[in-house]
């Protein structure tokens, strides 16, 4: 009488254990395949870029990345002005969008009424889904005239003595591209940072408040540092988008592959020149040079992301001390 139920029970447990093990293994395999596929795609991408840029790599070698000329007629190609444009526009974009984005995220998560916060967040997430060509058009028709008539003359008035803000301004420029990029990436920073700030445990806030902190002190000294890594993550996401953006940049950057000290001068970026010239590139070397630019952009993205991470690791350690 007493043996039967226990036998049934032990049988059930073993079957259950087997099932659990099998299920775990399947889940492990499935998720491994998902992760591996990303890795595989990245490897294939690099392989393809490497193979398809062979002619240009052999002909120009390392000088490709320090040469300033881009001459499709004489087939003399260099990446420097494009690398310069990509980096400069991304820096301008981050300088504008990081303070604005984090400020907005703090307001939405800590200050605003929940209903207002949800409505605004919905609108901001809509912004993140707007196609980049729309941002480019907005840039040409709205932003450039505003920059031309108001902002740039004011900037020149105050900072005109710096070479950074010297020279004539034609509307399209590195600066305009940076501003358009900042509009494009700010929704990423806001929506991710807001989620991260919201996920900070209530106890953290309560503890700070109970020690006599004001609302702002709680936010700035407790909540934001707690959410630091997530906020950095949102900035990386935004930076990646800024580095690779094509259409919107092409429309406002001026497409002039020259190194110029002024932000108000026209420039060009890697993604923009690839999109512009790929369809009409006829000679093999020309196509290979364009593909090598893709490889350079890939490497540049890795290096910049690495540097940013390093910066954060070192400053992060200092804060924790």
């Amino acid at each position, binding site marked *: 009488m007493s043996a039967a139920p226990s036998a049934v029970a032990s049988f059930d447990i073993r079957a259950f254990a087997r099932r659990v093990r099998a299920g775990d293994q399947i889940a492990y395999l499935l998720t491994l395949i998902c992760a591996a596929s990303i890795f595989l795609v990245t490897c294939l991408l690099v392989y393809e870029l490497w193979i398809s840029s062979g002619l240009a790599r052999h002909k120009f070698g390392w000088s490709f990345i320090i040469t300033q000329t881009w001459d499709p007629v004489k087939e003399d190609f260099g990446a420097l002005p494009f690398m310069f444009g990509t980096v400069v526009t991304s820096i301008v974009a981050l300088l504008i969008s990081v303070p604005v984005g984090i400020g907005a995220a703090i307001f939405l998560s800590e200050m605003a009424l929940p209903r207002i916060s949800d409505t605004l967040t919905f609108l901001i997430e809509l912004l993140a889904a707007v196609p980049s060509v729309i941002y480019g058009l907005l840039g040409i028709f709205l932003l450039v005239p505003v920059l031309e008539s108001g902002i740039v003359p004011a900037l020149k008035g105050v900072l005109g003595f710096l070479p950074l803000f010297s020279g004539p301004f034609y*509307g399209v420029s590195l600066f305009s591209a940076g501003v358009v990029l900042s509009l494009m990436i700010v929704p990423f920073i806001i929506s991710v940072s807001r989620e991260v700030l919201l996920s900070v445990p209530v106890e953290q806030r309560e503890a700070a408040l109970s020690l006599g902190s004001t609302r702002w002190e709680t936010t700035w000294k407790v909540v934001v540092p707690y959410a630091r890594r997530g906020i950095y993550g949102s900035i990386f996401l935004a930076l990646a988008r800024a580095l690779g953006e094509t259409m919107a940049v092409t429309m406002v950057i001026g497409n002039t592959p020259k190194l110029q000290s002024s932000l108000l001068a026209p420039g060009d970026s890697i993604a923009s020149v690839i999109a512009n010239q790929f369809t009409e*590139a006829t000679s093999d070397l020309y196509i290979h040079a364009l593909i090598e630019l893709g490889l350079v952009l890939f490497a540049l993205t890795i290096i910049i992301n690495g540097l940013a991470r390093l910066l954060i690791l070192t400053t992060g350690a200092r804060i924790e001390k």
Partner: protein
Amino acid sequence: MMRRNCLAAFAAVCFLGLPSFAQMSITGAGATFPYPMYSKWFDEYHKIHPDIQINYQSIGSGGGIRQVTEGTVDFGATDGPMTDEQLKAFREKRGGDVLHFPTVLGAVVPIYNVPGIATDLNFTPEALAGIFLGKVTKWNDPAIAKANPKIKLPGNDILVVHRSEGSGTTYVWVDFLSKVSPDWKSQVGTNTSVNWPVGIGGKGNEGVSGQVKQTANSIGYVELIYASHNKMAYGRVRNSSGNFVKAELASVTAAAAGVTMPDDFRVSITNPAGKNAYPISSFTWLLVPEQMQDSGKREAMKGFLKWMLGPGQKLTEALEYAPLPKAVVGQEEKAIAKLH
């Protein structure tokens, strides 16, 4: 743009191709400049011959040359003739030659925005080359002023606007500058995109014209069709006979009549002879492989080419493309027989 056209072509295949699957389908790809004309032609031809469907993707001349060389399309299209190396590459890859068939003519015109000037300006070839080389930097430079004695030009700095992307329009423009200016030829040269000595780049005809409209004292260049569709003012250019000519359908066709046509039709007609010829004009070509294995496709292609040179030419002016001169039509009709 390219993706949209691909999608459109794909959609066309899905919706039009499937119901009557017995029909012949020919695919082509290439130049964007003649795309409105080609899509009209292929559409009209399909109405007359419901069994023949020609799909065309306007992916750019470079892409057209690549794809026809690879054999992924039945024919290509280009705004600039294939170079000798490209022809050699085609022969090595496909065995047999590729034939150029001129279809229509286009022209490129200078547009500008000089405050206070509403009339059409005259440009000498030297002035245009000087401006685009960065040597003529002010609007009242004698190079420009001498050709416009009745107009008071301001002493402002000129801003040059060019196309940012590779383009047949750029090819025609710089081909002209190379012919009229030895400096341009040695320093810059001819291609679908070049290393511009000065200026800023706008994307497409609309990008260049938008930049010119927004910036005082600027000069750029756009296709004649784009300028006339948008009712833009554009300048006259002095031709090799010394006349300042405005680009119009008649003056563009006159440019094509002013050159001797070689047997392979690969000819640049910029700066031609002829009193009334507009000097910055060009043919645009279909690229058809001489040997087509599929006899059905070959006959269909021949039929289309014959129709294009006859009734097809009458459709050109409605879309503001300049039709081919009669002599060229006769020469092309003979060349169709080479397809085998």
